[in-house]
């Protein structure tokens, strides 16, 4: 209370009460203001309150029956909840109303109401620009304000930590599911997406592509040339696919494309043939050029078929090897009996 003059000159009852209870009101027997504490004065922009009716200054929220001077006696000793009729802020206050010591038998001299901001403290501090000096040293206002601000600081730190951890988690997952050479997804990512599509009964097409003559590139030009070719293949696949497709390198020169909603055999065949045609173009490498081709087996899965993922891969694999055996550079659709995809892999024979 260093800055509060009322506590420096404690002459008279008003000053003593104001120093002890900066948020108090003294009312006469009819509920009119006789004096008030300095901080409560701030709520009413320091305008003179003497003579104002308590009921004009405050809207009583509780107790319900406290509507006029005649009800003050019944409310004595009870907790009161008020809203200050001052500006648009509508600050909520709570407190206690007690009778002043009686002058004579049966005569009430008046009332003392001591108030506090309760949960509206941070609003009151911001609106009225209150300082440490506006609160009694017994008031826990400083601790509450400190705690509210400390809470914001700590929550902010925790929130930032959660964001950084989420970022790290996403990055770790990205790395765990990526093929570092080509930037395509890896087998793990492909398996998990295939499992999800099968589990959800989604319709999709799956292509299994294997490069032809890739071993010859490695043998002739070395592994750096082989890597260069694999990156080139990834580029061709990306150009041929849509945003939601999953492109994965699942082995040395083996690739899988998962195409949600794509079940049209002609469309799938078209995509595969265009990729093969592009891959047949010679790929420049240093002073020479690498020549490869590719074979593709594909399978389509209709909505609600919910097949065994291993079975889908096995059928695409079978189609791929049929394509290889038929002379390479070809596309073959999986050929299997109706409903065979629903059978577990072991029963397929």
């Amino acid at each position, binding site marked *: 209370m260093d800055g509060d003059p009322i506590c420096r000159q404690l002459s008279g009852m008003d000053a003593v009460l104001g120093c002890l209870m900066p948020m108090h009101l003294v009312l006469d027997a009819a509920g009119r203001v006789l004096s008030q504490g300095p901080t409560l004065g701030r709520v009413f922009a320091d305008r003179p309150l003497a003579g104002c009716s308590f009921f004009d200054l405050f809207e009583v929220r509780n107790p319900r029956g406290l509507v006029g001077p005649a009800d003050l006696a019944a409310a004595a000793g009870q907790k009161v909840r008020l809203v200050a009729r001052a500006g648009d802020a509508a600050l909520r206050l709570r407190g206690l109303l007690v009778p002043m010591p009686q002058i004579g038998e049966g005569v009430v001299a008046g009332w003392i109401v001591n108030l506090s901001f309760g949960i509206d403290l*941070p609003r009151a501090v911001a609106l009225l620009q209150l300082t440490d000096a506006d609160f009694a040293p017994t008031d826990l206002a400083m601790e509450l304000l*400190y705690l509210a*601000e*400390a809470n914001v600081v700590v929550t902010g730190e925790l929130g930032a*930590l959660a964001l950084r951890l989420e970022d790290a988690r996403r990055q770790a997952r990205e790395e765990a599911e990526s093929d570092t050479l080509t930037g395509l997804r890896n087998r793990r990512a492909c398996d998990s997406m295939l499992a999800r599509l099968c589990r959800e009964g989604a319709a999709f097409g799956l292509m299994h592509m294997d490069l032809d003559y890739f071993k010859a590139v490695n043998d002739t030009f070395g592994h750096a040339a082989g890597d260069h070719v694999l990156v080139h293949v990834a580029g061709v696949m990306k150009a041929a696919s849509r945003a939601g497709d999953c492109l994965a390198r699942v082995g040395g020169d083996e690739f899988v494309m998962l195409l949600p909603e794509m079940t049209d055999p002609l469309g799938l065949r078209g995509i595969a043939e265009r990729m093969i045609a592009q891959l047949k173009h010679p790929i420049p490498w240093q002073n020479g050029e690498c020549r490869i081709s590719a074979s593709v087996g594909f399978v389509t899965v209709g909505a609600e078929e919910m097949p065994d993922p291993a079975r889908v891969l096995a059928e695409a694999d079978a189609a791929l090897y049929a394509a290889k055996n038929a002379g390479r550079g070809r596309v073959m659709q999986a050929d299997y009996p109706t409903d065979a995809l629903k059978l577990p892999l072991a029963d397929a024979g």
Partner: protein
Amino acid sequence: MYGLLLRSIQAYLRATFGAAVWGRVLRAAGQSPDGFEPMLPYDADAFQRVLAACSAELDRPVETMLEDVGTFLVADPGNQGLRRLLRFGGATFADFLHSLEELPDRARLALPDLELPQIGLTESAPGLFQLSCGCSFPALFPVALGVLRAMADDYGALVLIDPVPAALANACGNGLSVQLLETAHGSGNRFDLSKGEVPYGW
């Protein structure tokens, strides 16, 4: 505690000497280039290695560096969090000094797991204080010294802060004498209880 201190050292070095210097410290201390998180636990060994690496990189004694970290924590205009929380301790610097004995409990209100060493304050003559800091975390002592000097500036108080002679120091050799020469020497920095924005009404 280690997390908070490591993060503070990280903030100080990055802001004052740049990310490259901090990166070299992390490498020399064998720590992840991602640095430290204030809320995650770290061990004493990592902390000591970072201190040694900072001292070597900056060519300054560990204590001097830690004192600068303390000053930075309060005086960094980009992060007013600690300064504001400490200013809630009192309206004047003397009032603030008296609130320091409550500091470990105030810190626990915000972070229940945080165990700050007990701080003792005696006012041997008007304006002459002796401060002692518990021995559970010796590295905090120089940081506290830096914080105290910066807070005096923040209040605009003119103070002399000196380590007490060894004979008067506590078991781990720390103890400060704070002589408050003038409470309103400089203008200090403004402190409003509210950060300005009015919280939502009802």
